[in-house]
């Protein structure tokens, strides 16, 4: 099976691009692929614990935890982007990684496909 690296800059709730990225990751993991999921910029808001589900807003915390539990999904937030937004390592949900941008580029090295969603 293959490895997919997904990178996104798109914000949580403010755009559905992040939802699309997570759905794509779910589909890939379900097919048996491994997925590395990178978040920069506003996308790092997904790496903030304590999110609540409302019917007017998408709620990605649950599918992300299910993906992490498969063992075939790594999720990593840009450390500087998160710190700039005022949340720190202790604010991260369990199973999330925080690294600098070179983690993402390294992940692309052995990825079979890279999907980069660079808009906001």
């Amino acid at each position, binding site marked *: 099976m293959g490895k997919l690296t997904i990178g996104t800059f798109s914000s949580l709730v403010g755009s559905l691009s992040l939802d699309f990225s997570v759905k794509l990751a779910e589909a890939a993991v379900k097919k048996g692929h491994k997925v590395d999921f990178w978040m920069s910029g*506003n996308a790092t808001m997904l790496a903030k614990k304590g999110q609540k589900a409302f019917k007017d807003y998408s709620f990605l915390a649950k599918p992300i935890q299910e993906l992490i539990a498969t063992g075939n999904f790594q999720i990593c937030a840009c450390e500087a982007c998160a710190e700039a937004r005022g949340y720190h390592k202790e604010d991260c949900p369990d199973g999330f990684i925080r690294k*600098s941008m070179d983690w993402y*580029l390294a992940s*692309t*090295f052995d990825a079979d496909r890279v999907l*980069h969603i*660079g*808009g906001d």
Partner: protein
Amino acid sequence: MATKKLAFIVRSLPYKTEASRLALTHAIASQTVEIYLNDGDLVEASVSYVGDGVLNCLKGQQGMKHYGITTIEGHAKNSLLLDMRVLICKEDLDKFGLTEDNILMDAEDIGGETKANVVSYGEIQKEMDAATHILVC
């Protein structure tokens, strides 16, 4: 030992969103990626500016004055200092009435030797064709 080529395609306006700045900071991060890779393996990044993205290359940006943040021009200059391949779409510059005089073409003032290249979109297409992965920002 292998080298993977990443083509960052910048098409976002500067300052309106963070996307173009992030494209540059990610591309520059290719300089330290070896810490995660096996000896001899490399990730090589290039940056191409197309569409509205060519406006990121304007000289004389005043990000610090108006927003208190570093300029995208500064990051672009750093990418040249690091000998990154930089392509700027000529057709899109023409649409904005811009010439090489208006845009950042080198980083000589900080010791850089590499220059940016103003090229036709066809050349940027070739850059994308040669890349292992394309990252549109």
